[in-house]
């Protein structure tokens, strides 16, 4: 790792007040661990700061970062800023749950330097919110966005979910229209994915509800893209839309552009261009590893005390595959130079262009909307 390599910093806040039945991100609902967690995180920052001295994007995700008490959030931001230079024009994002966003909370977030707010609204339909197990109502969501604007957040992203069981096109359109009333700079629209290990997975298996049919998912997707594009939102990644290019998520784009990032906190992943490693998926394990061993020499933090969950060293071939599959998820697409390193790529490009899934220009191959809908198959077409 050379000092300049990293620029994206992710911190995973592993706490939620309640667990949502569809979510498979790591979090725990026992907030007693918060204090020890912030101490452990401070130590992890200290270990990495020499190889990661500065950042131009910072992203607090979770979990529910806004579930943390103000003091804990202050401590975390102080720890970061003490060790890592955050550039003045940095994108500093925090994920928020609508009913955590009081005026006071929002003012505090502004004071800590957050300039982008990603609000987990999910739906403006109370029945859907209830189905999703969310702890807020549509009204609370509306109010939280108004408060955020008042507090001075001029970059707001709204998270929405669609292709829900029983959801109609009209219902989804209503939610989209509600969101657009706030002129958010950014929208993330996720199709519900039923993942193994979540309560929804068991529900679907026991036929407690009927997941959206693939054909309908496809129609929802094409509709959403066209609907938002018509209203000025660029569909720049499979699930992401921005009101202008400058509002595209800078931090998240680093993942799709295969750039380097450091992830701190339980279950967070890091990538240094060759190696990827990830932390243990447990708050207790994370805390114990970082704080468990008494330091003989507090100034020197040893690699062994890092809460590693695993790592992999990527081969050139694997790096090429990742860059391809990530690139094909975005409207930037992928450089032809890169694509052409795959066998029979020109023939595949021609076919995909003929099938209306890719547009090939002089130096890039970019997926069409229909291509984004089939992005995983697209990548597979190139590997053999």
């Amino acid at each position, binding site marked *: 790792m050379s000092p300049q390599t990293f620029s994206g910093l*992710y911190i995973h806040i592993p706490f939620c007040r309640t667990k949502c039945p569809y979510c498979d*991100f790591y979090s725990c609902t026992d907030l007693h661990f918060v204090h020890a967690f912030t101490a452990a995180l401070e130590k992890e920052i200290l270990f990495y700061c020499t190889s990661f001295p500065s950042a131009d994007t910072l992203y607090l995700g979770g979990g529910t970062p806004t579930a943390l008490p103000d003091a804990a959030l202050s401590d975390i931001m102080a720890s970061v800023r003490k060790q890592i230079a955050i550039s003045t024009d940095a994108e500093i994002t925090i994920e928020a749950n609508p009913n955590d966003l009081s005026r006071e909370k929002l003012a505090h977030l502004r004071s800590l330097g957050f300039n982008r707010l990603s609000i987990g609204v999910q739906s403006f339909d109370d029945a859907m919110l209830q189905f999703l197990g969310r702890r807020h109502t549509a009204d609370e969501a509306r109010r939280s966005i108004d408060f955020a604007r008042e507090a001075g957040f001029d970059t707001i992203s709204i998270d929405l979910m669609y292709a829900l069981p029983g959801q109609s096109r009209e219902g989804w359109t209503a939610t989209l229209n509600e969101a657009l009333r706030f002129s958010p700079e950014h929208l993330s629209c*996720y*199709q*519900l*994915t039923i993942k193994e290990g979540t309560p929804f997975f068991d529900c679907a298996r026991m036929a407690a509800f009927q997941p959206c049919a*693939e*054909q309908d*998912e*496809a129609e929802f*997707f094409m509709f959403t893209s066209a609907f938002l594009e018509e209203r000025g939102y660029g569909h720049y990644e*499979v*699930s992401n839309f921005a009101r202008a290019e400058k509002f595209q998520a800078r931090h*998240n784009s680093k*993942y*799709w552009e295969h750039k380097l*990032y450091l*992830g701190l906190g339980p*279950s*967070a*992943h*890091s*990538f240094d261009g060759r190696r*990827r490693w*990830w932390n243990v998926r447990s708050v207790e394990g994370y805390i114990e590893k970082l704080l468990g061993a008494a330091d003989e020499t507090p100034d020197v933090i040893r690699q062994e005390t890092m809460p590693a969950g695993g790592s*992999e060293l990527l081969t050139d071939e*694997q790096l090429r*595959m*990742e860059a391809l*599959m*990530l690139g094909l*998820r975005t409207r930037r697409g992928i450089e032809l130079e890169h694509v052409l390193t795959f066998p029979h790529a020109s023939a595949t490009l021609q*076919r995909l262009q003929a*099938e209306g*899934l890719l547009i090939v220009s002089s130096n890039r191959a970019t997926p069409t909307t229909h291509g*984004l*809908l*089939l*992005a*995983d*198959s697209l*990548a*597979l*077409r190139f*590997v*053999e």
Partner: protein
Amino acid sequence: MQQIRNFSIIAHIDHGKSTLADRLIQHAGLSNDRQFRDQILDNMDIERERGITIKSQNCALNYTAKDGKEYHLNLIDTPGHVDFSYEVSRALASCEGVLLLVDAAQGVEAQTLANLYAAMEHNLEIIPVINKIDLPAADVERVKEEIMDELGLDAEAALKCSAKAGIGIDEIFEAIVERIPPPTGDPAAPLQALIFDANYDPFRGTVISCRIFEGTIKAGDIIRFMSNGATYKVEDVGVFRLKLEKHKQLSAGEVGYIIAGIKTVSDTRVGDTITNDANPAATAVHGFVEPKSMVFSSVYPISSDDYPSLVEALEKYKLNDAALEYEKDSSAALGMGFRCGFLGLLHLEIVQERLEREFNQSIIMTAPSVQYKFTLKNGQNIIVDNPQYYPDPTTIDIAEEPYVKISIIIPERYMGVVMKLCMDRRGLNSKFHYPSTGRIEINFEMPLAEIVYDFYDRLKSVTQGYGSFDYDFIGHRESELVKVEILVNHEPVDALSIIVHKENARARGLQICERLEKEIPRQMFKIIIQGAIGGTIIARSTINPYRKDVTAKCYGGDISRKRKLLEKQKEGKKRMKMVGNVEIPQKAFVSVLKSVED
């Protein structure tokens, strides 16, 4: 020479041949208990898994008989399945006697008879041995009656043993010594050595298994193959123990190996006679049956880049399996490959498995076909075993397909279901007789194509494994044939087309379409599968495309998992074949061959 005995063990499948062979070897002190693996002679994985012997293996045993003399016994192991009667015939030509093994519970079965007739053709001494006498279901008296009535042998001369429990082994050794005649031949006569097997050793080249009928062979001799006149210098001769054991020479009456620096594997023809170049024999050894291919199928590499590797694998494979015939073939759908001739369906399956396992080939095999004869309106006669070369139907005057006479022995209670099965498969001219109380032998004349298809599987299924089965080719007969083509997205997949009897065409076409529908994964576009005779569509199915194939979220923690999935799919793709723009997995081609229990 008086102290040499050359013998084989012949039996119906599962009557305990390999177990007896192992017991004899162990008894002769060649392997102690610690070394003893079950069924030493079945040394291929497939043989162990399927419990059948495919390749003949040989072993020299020393035995001190009750007369105080030491005897040199050469055991020549033989395959036990109907498809391999050719290999049995080669082994039998090298023997003076056989142990005819009969299961004490099962009694005489179809292959017991077939094997007996083969041994009789070679004028061999036959020693009936009733095996598995320790089984609770053993009925030695009934089996003795069958030996007398069915086989026409002296039942009182039958030995009783349990190879598994080691009972009666001494008596078998004594009978071999007393009843099987010693070989004849003149060690001083011109050399006549019969090749009955050959193996390829990557370090030493071809290892020839042979029986010396006349003369003597030693290292340094210049030998000549009588079929093609090729000459080689002998490097090494010896006998088979569990490994090769070098000897100074091999003389008339002996069985052993010859290594003569033969690098080009196709130079060795099993069935050929080796003689001395300087002092040649006047004639070659008689008594060999040329292998006759009954079933034909094409083999293609999944990736056309692997064609050279397949060429090499087939060349090496062929050395160990003289019965396999192959020639170059090409398909519009599958590229360059080989048309292969097999002894039967099991032989085909074994070749396929061995090419994949032992030679690491990823291959696709086409639906098995038999050899059809066509007389065209212009008087020309043609033979077709490959649907690709099916003549223009308007030019055909007479079409003929091969018929076989089948013999099935079953417990009486299965008679109804077996009769129905045979009639459904166009069986004709049935005959029955009762070899013993409660059992029935059924004969039918039937098209070979019906057997090749899935007859044996069906027979085993309807008789719950109690049916024993054998068949003999009886000639071609006039028939109404059609070619069914399979089209994937309107492109004919030549490798999937089949020649069938007119009445079976629709059912087979539908079945192939349905199986392909199940095995071809959804792709990004709609796939239409059709069966057609000429321009007429007789069967159809469709595979709907992916509507959506993308995960909603892909952030820092998702990338590894997604890449791993892609890597796994990439591996899966290696086993796919592109036909037009459709990816067809290897298992789709295989599924077309397989029978399904209904």
